[in-house]
């Protein structure tokens, strides 16, 4: 397995290195689907130039990355390509190890359940075999490294790749059960883009499970753990925010990074839902709709947590997907991160209902993005409505994909409790209907 992983990494790095050298790198770095105003490399370069001139990089309205990123590239700017390739490799390896560990646990849990005879007799089909699970980690790494979205994002030197690496490390440390490191990586991810804040919940749920603390608000041990984790998380967030302040000597970056993310002043088209709405909207409704749109990301945490409190890793996947769909400046790099988790749920395929439709729509949309962009911006014959229609379709497809997986997951759990072949009261075969 290690050998195949190495081979995979070599292939992935070769592809990226070749693309960096080709003439494609420049046009890719300009694509609005690949870079957002926050993650664009061009803007990072601008910020660096301002910093070198002794001007605050946040003066003006160009640079919106965090201070740590700019200081990171202050040292690494000459090795940027290597840094981004390394970030992708780290993310892939972290996901690989995390999934491997997770699968081991799933298998162990399944063994206990089987020994305790907890599954109905006709559910044997649903039991997962080790041979089937053996290649999943490798597939996850492959889905991440060879996904065209990740490759494009890396070639464009979008800082999204770094965020993904941090998130992948967070997943790894959480699954390994390391509370402190999990909190630190989560704090780093939050510091980068706020939204991973919602991953707090799955992380805590998972770690509690891991330490055999019952998830029960009436128990003191539950609250003690929550306080512990939040203390570590908020503490490291405090440290990192103060560190940024001392590096720059001003609080300029707070409005320029987080204000920028939350109030969405830049309406450059992207694959998200915000730009078109806010470009069309009357100014005095702006605040209201801003709240409505931003609440989307955070709101789903609560129902999902309640429904999936026994399955925190799946919850984590759902949250990553929700973030990448509803965040204010999404790029394809964000999508790539949660798409990498799909092989982990390959055992759900029999319950998926719209996977064909959804994958067709996603493929078609990915091809249509550049075409409609060309027609809108260069040819001038189409307009923003055409482009936004595709954006909308892309997001609907993503939402369908995620809800399909959600449904399939719940359905499998249901069958594992009640048996695969459900009978109605009169003895005829029953079907499950989601209403």
């Amino acid at each position, binding site marked *: 397995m290690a050998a195949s992983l190495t081979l995979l990494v070599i292939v992935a790095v070769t592809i990226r290195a070749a693309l960096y050298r080709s003439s494609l790198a420049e046009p890719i770095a300009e694509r609005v689907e690949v870079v957002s105003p926050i993650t664009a490399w061009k803007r990072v370069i601008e910020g660096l130039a301002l910093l070198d001139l002794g001007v605050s990089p946040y003066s003006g309205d160009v640079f919106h990355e965090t201070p740590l990123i700019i200081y990171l590239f202050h040292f690494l700017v000459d090795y940027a390509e290597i840094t981004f390739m390394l970030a992708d490799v780290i993310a892939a390896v972290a996901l690989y190890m995390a999934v491997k560990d997770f699968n081991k646990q799933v298998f162990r849990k399944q063994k206990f359940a089987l020994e305790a005879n907890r599954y109905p007799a006709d559910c044997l089909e649903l039991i997962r075999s080790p041979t089937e699970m053996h290649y999943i980690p490798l597939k996850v790494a492959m889905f991440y490294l060879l996904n065209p979205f990740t490759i494009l994002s890396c070639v464009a030197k979008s800082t999204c790749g770094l965020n993904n690496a941090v998130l992948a490390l967070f997943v790894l440390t959480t699954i390994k059960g390391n509370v402190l490191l999990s909190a630190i990586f989560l704090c780093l991810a939050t510091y980068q883009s706020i939204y991973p804040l919602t991953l707090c919940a799955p992380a805590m749920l998972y770690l509690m499970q891991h330490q055999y603390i019952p998830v029960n608000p009436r128990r003191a041990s539950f609250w003690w753990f929550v306080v512990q984790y939040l203390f570590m998380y908020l503490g490291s967030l405090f440290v990192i925010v103060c560190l940024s302040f001392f590096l720059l000597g001003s609080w300029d970056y707070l409005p320029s990074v987080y204000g920028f993310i939350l109030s969405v002043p830049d309406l450059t088209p992207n694959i998200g839902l915000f730009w078109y709405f806010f470009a069309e909207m009357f100014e005095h409704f702006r605040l209201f709709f801003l709240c409505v749109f931003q609440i989307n990301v955070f709101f789903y945490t609560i129902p999902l947590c309640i429904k999936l409190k026994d399955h925190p890793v799946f919850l984590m996947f759902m949250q990553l997907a929700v973030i990448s769909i509803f965040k204010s400046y999404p790029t394809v790099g964000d999508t790539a991160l949660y798409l990498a988790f799909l092989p982990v749920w390959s055992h759900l395929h029999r319950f998926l209902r719209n996977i*064909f439709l959804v994958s*067709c729509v996603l493929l*078609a949309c990915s*091809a249509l993005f550049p075409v409609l962009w060309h027609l809108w911006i260069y040819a*001038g014959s189409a307009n923003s409505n055409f482009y936004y229609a595709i954006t909308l379709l892309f997001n609907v497809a993503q939402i*369908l994909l995620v809800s399909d997986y959600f449904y399939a997951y719940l359905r499998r759990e249901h069958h594992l409790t009640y048996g695969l072949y459900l009978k109605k009261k009169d003895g005829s075969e029953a*079907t499950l209907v989601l209403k």
Partner: protein
Amino acid sequence: MGLLSDPNRRRALINLLTRLNAPICVLCYFAGVCWFMGLAFEPFTLRTYMSENAMGSTMVEERFPSGERALATGREFAAHKKKVGGMPVDWLVKTMQARGLEVFTQSFSRTLPFPDEDKERYIVKGTNVYGILRAPRAARTEALVLSAPCSPGDNNNQAVGLLLGLAHYFRGQIFWAKDIIFLVNEHDLIGMQAWLESYHHTNTTGMDWSPLQGRGGSIQAALSLELSSDVITSLDIVLEGLNGQLPNLDLANLFYAFCQKIGVLCTIQGRLQRNDWDSVSGYSHAVQTMMLMVMKQASGRPWGDHGLFLRYHIEAASIKGINSFRQYKTDITTVGRLLEGMFRKLNNLLERLHQSYFFYLMPSLSHFVSIGYYMPAFGLLAVILLLRALDLWVQFVSPPAVTADGVGDVEQQSSPGALSVLTPLVISHLTGAALYILPTRFQEIAVEHFPVSETEAVVLTAIAVYTAGLALPHNTHRLLSGEGTEQGWRVLKLVAVLYLAILLGCTALINFSLGFILALTLVPVAAFVTPHVPKTLSAVVLVILSPACTLLLSVFFFQELQEMPVSFQDGWLMYLSVISQGILDHHLYGSLVYPLIALMVYPCWLLFWNILFWK
């Protein structure tokens, strides 16, 4: 959402779609073709109308008086052209200066990738001359262009004469709010390309040109003029530009409105419009006019000097004077008045032309078909591909019984290795890349070893590579370790069908005509090919419907439409020249049709060829 979540209804729908797949596909195909043919039927089309308010109700008067003088200037120009044996730069500069313009010249040179035998040129050197009439009425931030080509022989002398006459007359008027640029370009499109690239500071095709010394504002609209006789019977407007792009319909409306006002016969595709739409001959006339537009648009070539403006977001059209044997003649003063009127209306524009349609087909100058009407014709063809893909997917997911609900699935068959799908995919794309790269790269070697000219070498190499690709299936199978399985070809076909659907969809969005013609021929191929159909017969059908044969048939069809049928011999020669022109267009102006065919459509077709010979 009921359809997506209720398993019973889904099952019913999917059962219906898989059981009736073949009839539905056939029905869709014929419905698509019929819809398309119906587009030219006048009651189904919309009348053209002026959408742009700035050009609508404002009245302008046309007073251009000096047609005779323009003709005299044209004759003088012809004499100087003959004397110099090319573009009389000095004379033009002097004449334009005498008319009070700011005059500049631009020289350019370009070595073609291989000799152009149609226009007999290889190393092209030339000079563009242009004069700017500065706007007296407003800040000089916007401009209009009137261009006339300096063609070899006796062509277009009257156009240059009229251009100079108009320049002289416009100079005396005070209402210009936009700079007007009078451009005389040498070597038709190459000169235009040089001038436009230089004007916009881009260089996309690697041409050498000297930078422009004087510039106007951003160009809002452009007209290109072609006149070769002192009197004309009708004026023809040409809209098709590079890659099938069309100018805003308002430009055509403007032309039509002025032709009506001044009383000049106007044509599109060189065909007058008829009023008897309800008769068979009237309908067939409209269909032929529309088909001519479709064929021209599908070729992706600029059909006049205006074609390159469109890439820069400038609405442009060519106006050609036609002199036929009709009685009713229009003199050059009237043409001048028409142009004056159009320019005055364009001068009134407050913003770029954007109100009207950009995607349309015109069965006559007074009627058009908008995107909403013609897209369903393509959609009906594309839906066949999706239905076939759905059918394959259902077979693939649940071989014995369709249970979309998931319950009761038997264990899936061992899925075929990714290798068996990837190999044909990669190999056919490599063949496509060879088709794209080899012809221009290997012309020298080919010329050394075979008794052919460079141009023939390029075209014949392209045909040779294309034909060599047909031998692929046998070789890919040798590369595959195991033999192809029943599931293998299904997966490959699923991939190929989806690939084709996306490819055609994208093409149809950019260039509807090209997408539709390709869909017309490739969709049946994609729908019926399996390894189990009779081999020889299907192979013949597949070859006939392949992109290259489609092109050959299109050449004959186009000649037929133009009422100039050719013998097979001439058609073949024309076919060869069309291929060389296609490759040249790509290298000179960045036309995308050749790379699209070579890198995407041909490999996609090869996949179906592979499926036919799957073992």
